[in-house]
């Protein structure tokens, strides 16, 4: 047995026990340490930054996150690299709290706060609080996190009572019973990761534009590479519209600018969720929960193609750019943009107009005066329709512009996928000679360009990369949350946190 108190321990590195094999060998050591910590509730160590001794300690309900006394770190303290513990100080007591799970500390903190708040509201509602309705709403928004966390806690309790049983069994030399307990513990512990995943998901900020009702505008433009680029833009156009239709979305071409050889200089597609449901039997990421924007959003960026053009023998590299913008479902009657900010011009012949003229040149250009963003459509023979399309384009572009400004003003320089990617970022390379598509963000490479481009909604290009990109995004969000926590702890006010939560 190791007598902790009498040692000047400079560093304790704690590893959360996830597997049963640590048990039997170190059980005795662990137990004595843990009992010291629990019962004496006294000091534990001075923490410095160099590791010197290691102990492994089993999970125990008595040393768990619930005992965390929120406070500030001591100046001499530091957090271990794997963030599995933090040093707390509560006036006289300097203690160590163990993170009993693999959840990042900041996440766990937020989750437990949510859980507390949930309990508080429940309590308040029972005592007939005045703001019942508002509290009720808050309650339902917190309920998912609270119930998941409740599950986790009760699971942990079950495990730890089994641990104690196992301890007792080991001490009384009933090894078979101890083994049975350990098996049971392992079984229970295997349930934990999925609960923790769901917990993390429940507290990460969600993109409200992922919802099924949110449509999108997809703008595809040929960039560098002349003819090759426009042909490739056409390929992407075909692929995306095909995929969208297979997903049951409605695709409308807002504007199309073609070249003589069948390429596309620019095309703007409006993709909205249709009435047809999409039946998916795939497990994993549920494709049904995403609307057009959620489905296509990671396609924004520059797509680079390397192939031998039809009239040449050398490989040529060209690019096409794709932009995916969320479309508000606001109809044009209730436009969010005041009409006085818009300048609407009609390109028509000079002369008296009206009944005097019957040629239908009905191109419409709308300019948003404050931002100078403009959109012009001349596709339809109906001026009315062209105007409606141009309005939709302007709204989408202007709203996206303002959102970007807003984000910038809040000082949020979103990196990576969180920021939706900058439009000039090269995101994918399509290499025809090697028949591969590589996504530079998630660093994945897939083979079979044609089958990817022409694939179904699930096997096609977009959905093949989507799970990887979503995971990358999620990891970024988690890291971001961690970063927040450190800032938060260093900064007395919590303002930075509040602004980011939307």
């Amino acid at each position, binding site marked *: 047995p190791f007598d902790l108190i009498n040692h000047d321990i400079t560093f304790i590195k704690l590893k959360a026990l996830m597997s049963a094999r640590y048990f039997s060998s170190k059980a005795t050591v662990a137990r004595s340490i843990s009992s010291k910590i629990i019962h004496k509730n006294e000091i534990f160590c001075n923490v410095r930054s160099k590791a010197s001794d290691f102990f492994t300690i089993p999970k125990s309900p008595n040393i768990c996150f619930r005992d965390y006394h929120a406070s500030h770190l001591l100046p001499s303290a530091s957090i271990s690299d794997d963030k599995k513990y933090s040093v707390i100080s509560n006036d006289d007591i300097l203690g160590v709290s163990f993170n009993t799970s693999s959840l990042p500390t900041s996440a766990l903190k937020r989750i437990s706060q949510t859980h507390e708040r949930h309990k508080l509201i429940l309590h308040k509602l029972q005592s007939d609080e005045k703001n019942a309705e508002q509290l009720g709403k808050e309650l339902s928004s917190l309920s998912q996190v609270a119930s998941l966390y409740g599950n986790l806690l009760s699971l942990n309790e079950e495990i730890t009572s089994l641990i104690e049983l196992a301890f007792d069994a080991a001490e009384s030399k009933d090894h078979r019973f101890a083994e049975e307990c350990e098996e049971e513990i392992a079984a229970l512990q295997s349930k934990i990761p999925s609960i923790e995943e769901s917990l993390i998901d429940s507290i990460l900020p969600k993109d409200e534009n992922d919802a099924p009702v949110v449509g999108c505008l997809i703008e595809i433009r040929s960039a560098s590479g002349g003819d090759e680029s426009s042909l490739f833009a056409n390929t992407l156009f075909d692929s995306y519209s095909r995929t969208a239709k297979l997903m049951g979305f409605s695709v409308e071409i807002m504007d199309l600018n073609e070249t003589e050889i069948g390429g596309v200089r620019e095309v703007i597609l409006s993709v909205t969720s249709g009435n047809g449901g999409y039946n998916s039997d795939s497990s994993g990421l549920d494709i049904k929960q995403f609307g057009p924007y959620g489905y296509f959003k990671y396609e924004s960026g520059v797509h680079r193609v390397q192939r031998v053009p039809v009239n040449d023998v050398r490989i040529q590299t060209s690019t096409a750019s794709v932009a995916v913008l969320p479309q508000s479902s606001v109809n044009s009657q209730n436009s969010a943009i005041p009409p006085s900010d818009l300048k609407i011009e009609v390109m028509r012949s000079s002369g008296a107009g009206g*009944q005097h*003229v019957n040629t239908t040149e009905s191109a419409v250009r709308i300019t948003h005066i404050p931002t100078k963003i403009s959109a012009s459509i001349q596709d339809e023979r109906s001026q009315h329709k062209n105007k409606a399309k141009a309005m939709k384009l302007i709204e989408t572009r202007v709203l996206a512009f303002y959102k970007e400004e807003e984000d910038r003003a809040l000082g949020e320089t979103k990196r990576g996928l969180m920021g939706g990617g900058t439009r000039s970022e090269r995101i994918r390379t399509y290499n025809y000679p090697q028949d591969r598509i590589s996504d530079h963000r998630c660093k994945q490479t897939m083979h079979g360009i044609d089958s990817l481009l022409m694939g179904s909604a699930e096997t096609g290009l977009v959905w093949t990369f989507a799970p990887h990109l979503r995971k990358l995004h999620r990891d970024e969000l988690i890291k971001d949350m961690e970063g927040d926590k450190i800032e938060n702890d260093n900064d007395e006010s919590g303002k930075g946190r509040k602004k980011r939560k939307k």
Partner: protein
Amino acid sequence: LENIQLRAPILCPRPETEELVDWVVQDLRRELGRYGGEEQPPLRLLDVGCGSGVIGLSLAKEFPHAEIVGIDSSEIAVELSTENAQLVLNNKSESNAPRYQALHVPASHYTNVDAHAHTPHTSKEPYRFGFHHVIANPPYILPSDMKSLSPDVLNHEDHNALCGGVSADGLDIVREIVARLPEWTASEPQADADADTGDGIAADIYTARVHANSYCYMEVDDSHPALIQSWLDGTDEEFSGVQFVESGKDLSGRDRFVKLLIAHKNPPRPA
């Protein structure tokens, strides 16, 4: 509207006419919005000089409970707009009466009053009016402008559908329309009687409707809004009852549209 049939010499719909319909739709939506949408009051609209029927049919599509009558002096127009109604609407309301009806009669003759005797006709069926609003894209081109029209227009479209009459200002047809507006928008006596037996809600809505204003929306030549305004503001006795409300510009920035108010001469119905 899609799939509308067009036929020479009926005029091709112009973009400005789309704007006219837009204006009417916005106003009507605002007005009907007051009723909350459950009990939609009856809505009768008149399209003067309906041509291919696009104005009336666009409105019929926007307001499914509306009844539209289109009149035109050209028989071909009446045929064409009736065909288009079939294509676009399936032309049936709940009571199986056609929602869109086209009549072959010029504006000047669309009246139940004998022009000379000022007494109701006895020889033929009286027309049913009771329109809530009147919309028109009448011939409005000044006679002096007719010869400078482009060949596209001159060679393929009906001159009678273009030229605004013999007067130099091109407002003859407009004047005929304005003269008839009070008669067209007067509430119907029969409808009064019907409302008697209806339930309380319908009667209230009807009463409200009678008091609501009737408007006339027209597309005209860019010289006309100013002329019409000074004409009507001068309260000519013959045209009493019609007031100038406002004019509107088209997307090219030209004065193109007028909106007129017809003050009802009927006394309010007792509640």
